[in-house]
């Protein structure tokens, strides 16, 4: 079990995380944030493996990753 949270207000919608996610779980959100960017969202949290690649490439530190302690 793993999940990500996105700081949607500070996300600049660069979409680097979309390309980084090996399972294609991150998508552009059509709603604009206060800065006028389309932030990203995780569309299928159940599939997230907590690999962190999206967070690693995020230039704005907007993604936090959580994982079940096993």
């Amino acid at each position, binding site marked *: 079990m793993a999940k990500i949270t996105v700081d949607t207000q500070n996300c600049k919608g660069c979409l680097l995380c*979309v390309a980084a996610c090996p399972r294609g779980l991150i998508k552009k959100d059509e709603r604009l944030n206060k800065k006028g*960017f389309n932030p990203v969202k995780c569309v299928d949290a159940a599939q997230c493996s907590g690999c962190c690649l999206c*967070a690693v*490439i995020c*230039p704005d*530190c907007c993604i936090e990753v*959580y994982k079940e302690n096993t």
Partner: protein
Amino acid sequence: MEKIYSRPRSLRENPTHYCPGCGHGIAHKLVAQVVDELDIREKVIAIAPVGCAVIAYDYWDFDCSEAAHGRALAVATAIKRLRPENVVFTYQGDGDLAAIGTNETIHAANRGENLTVIFINNAVYGMTGGQMAPTTLLGQKTATTPRGRVAQEGLPLKISELLAGLGGVKYVERVSMHAPAEVLKAKRALTQAFQNQIDGVGFSLVEILSPCPTYWGKSPQKSAEWIRDVMIKEFPLGRIK
């Protein structure tokens, strides 16, 4: 669930002023992560450049100085000589380190100053509006090479290879930020460059190929692909020294 990836302690909460997909944000984060992991936040003194990262001190949460354009390594030299117990690094772009500051760069390297240098190569001047940098590729269009850079305007300057030839230089590695795996390699190189200083090894430089989507006129993803497919051919990745 346990939080396994979040903002490093040494990176302030302030949102950056960088454009979407800019490499500076990733590089700042990597530096902060390495500083945290080596537990040197209270020892670090950073020198910010002139260029897009001029206000890096608004983002890092440790002591920091500005430097006049290109002079970061002169400033850092004095700080490290006077305070060898501190960990001193410069963070410089291609214009700063490899054009206006070439003299300071080469001589600090040649003296073998025990410093860590983080060199952001994005092949363009960002802050001033996308002009030709010393590292601009042949054929690359910029505000001052509107027809694409030609040889007479200078070949892409391989300052890392040039510095590697100097006896005072102990470690040079070129890394990239075009994919998560590359970012992780970049972090390892930065860790090495900081550890070298702590161990007294000497002048260590990490060149980071970094995207500038705005002045490359490409989306962040296309910029990453351009590094992977084009820029790396001119600036091959890996350990240079």
